């Protein structure tokens, strides 16, 4: 088990190191003078531009050698200093990110976990149940094949425009100020529901299909037939099948994270939901490299942390790793 975690940790550290290095390269290796480009594109007021030019040249440390710039970047990173946003000047990037992160957690965590849980349960239930299987299979495949933003667009159009039940832009009404009251909480939930539903549905289809296929494999395995031959009740056989089938689904969750993050990004764009995805798009469109850098760093760290958590979960659900029977 120590070997298992040791290897995993090494890979995560190497990945984090590489990712931060790529991140560091974003503004520095842009063609031309990044500062000048940025200021020209952002078209800020002349006096602000001058101040910013001075600030950025100093922040870049363009007078020191490249290796030193690189070291300085790491030092600043550990101090939580990610530079200043151009597009939201003069707010520091770390502050802008801090304001967006809660929305992401609020949207992504329930969507990922609930769709995984519900999809697995439903997939296991539907497998080899003729009628459910025949309806689930096509629906599940269509759902998992649906581009995230298209489902978002459809839901927004149907429930936001045609039926006019849900709001389709922002995290709360423009007329409201964030405060603790039932009216506000209700408003936030209403804005949250459609983005959540579109993320949930696409994920649900994929997990249900995956589980259904895994269960069928497991039910055809020798141990299942053996148990059936011994006269074990159907429910018990299915329980064992489920336990075996859940392992690849845990791995699958780790493999899917990148796709889910990209999906969340476009979903936020469709609903103008002010999470990291929406911020990242604004940063790209405004060529705000420091903000891009910050978003990128946040996404990388989040994906790595989630992967690590899944590795820990894997140890809990797979007794073989706990006993050191397999290396990976």
């Amino acid at each position, binding site marked *: 088990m120590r070997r298992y975690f040791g290897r995993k940790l*090494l*890979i*995560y550290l*190497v*990945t984090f190191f*590489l*990712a931060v290095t*790529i991140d560091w390269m*974003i503004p520095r290796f*842009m*063609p031309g003078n990044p500062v000048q480009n940025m200021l020209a594109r952002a078209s800020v007021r002349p006096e602000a531009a001058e101040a910013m030019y001075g600030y950025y040249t100093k922040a870049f440390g363009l007078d020191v050698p490249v290796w030193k710039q690189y070291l300085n970047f790491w030092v600043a990173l550990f101090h939580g200093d990610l530079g200043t946003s151009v597009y939201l000047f003069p707010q520091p990037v770390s502050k802008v990110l801090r304001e967006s992160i809660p929305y992401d957690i609020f949207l992504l965590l329930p969507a990922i976990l609930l769709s995984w849980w519900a999809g697995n349960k439903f997939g296991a239930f539907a497998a080899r149940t003729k009628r459910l299987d025949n309806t689930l*299979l*096509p629906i599940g*495949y*269509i759902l*998992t*094949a*649906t*581009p*995230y*933003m*298209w*489902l978002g*667009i*459809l839901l*927004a*159009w149907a429930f*936001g*425009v*045609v039926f006019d039940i849900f709001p*389709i832009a922002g995290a709360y009404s423009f007329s409201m100020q964030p405060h603790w009251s039932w009216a506000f909480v209700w408003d936030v939930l209403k804005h949250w529901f459609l983005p959540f539903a579109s993320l949930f549905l696409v994920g649900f289809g994929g997990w249900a*299909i995956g589980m259904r*296929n895994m269960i*069928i*494999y497991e039910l*055809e395995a020798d141990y299942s037939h053996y148990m059936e031959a011994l006269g074990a009740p159907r429910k018990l056989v299915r329980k064992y099948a489920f336990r075996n089938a859940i392992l690849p689904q845990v791995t699958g969750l780790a*493999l899917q*994270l*990148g*796709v889910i*993050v*990209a*999906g969340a*990004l*476009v979903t936020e*764009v*469709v609903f103008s939901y002010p999470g990291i995805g929406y911020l*990242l*798009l604004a940063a*790209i*469109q405004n*060529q705000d*490299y420091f903000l*891009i850098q910050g978003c*990128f760093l946040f*996404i*990388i760290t989040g*994906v*790595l942390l989630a*992967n690590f958590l899944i590795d820990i979960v894997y140890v809990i659900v797979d007794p073989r790793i706990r006993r050191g029977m397999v290396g990976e």
Partner: protein
Amino acid sequence: MTPTTKNAKKKRNEFVYFALRNTKLKVGAVVVITFLIVAMLGTLFTEFEPREYVGPMSEAPSSEYWFGTTFFGQDVFTQFVVGLRATFMVGAIGGGLATLIGMLIGFVAGYRGGAVDESLNVVTNIVLVVPSFAILIIIAAYLEVRGLMMESIFIGLTAWPWTARAIRAQTLSLKSREFVDMARISGMKPMRIIFTEIAPNMMSYLVMAFILQFGGSILIAATLDFIGLGPTTGISLGLMMQNAVNWGALQLGLWWWFIPPGAAIAAIVGALYIMNVGLDEVFNPKLREM
């Protein structure tokens, strides 16, 4: 004819027999082929250019403009057909490249084992966890003009890890079989063993991996196009959706602008996935009895 080739032929006939009787495979194939035909021949039915302003603005579907027109008066059908072509190209090139890289890395890592396997594993894991669109943002900033080809190659270069993992696992289980030992004893070179002994024995697996990668590449491309990181020239289904959302098609109720592109993607990719299940049943006798 030696007994083994006879056997192989018999087996192939068996696959054809089950393939022709598999509803999932047939339905999936019909849907994909229909869209492929539309993509190839669709431009014959339109005299417009995808970005050309041809008619009245925001017009509902009619006999003249089959899928209506956009907010700017572009013909949606023309955009749809040309976009469909881009979709198939990204799927074929991106998915093909991803499968190829995944195959090579999976074969070598699984067959060689040891230090080669370990280091390839590290590379695979790194590519797996770095969100590929994050890297594309950087590339997009470098290249002001990007084509469809570049997008496809990029997708191919980042989408291979899970295929590599799966193929590595398969290779591991195959390499200790007797026929591979025989080949090794008779002095065959490792690369030849991989391609003449191991690969043919997991052909079904490779075909299925390609189909999944094909569908996956289409979805990734749609996502990239939607956030403006796709090709800067031409038109694609993802780009159509981006334009529709940016220009308020939702609020204006121009459903004919945003429904066809997404529906086509969902139908093609869904059909590919269903084909895959069908193929699985054809190749794997255990799954057939349904």
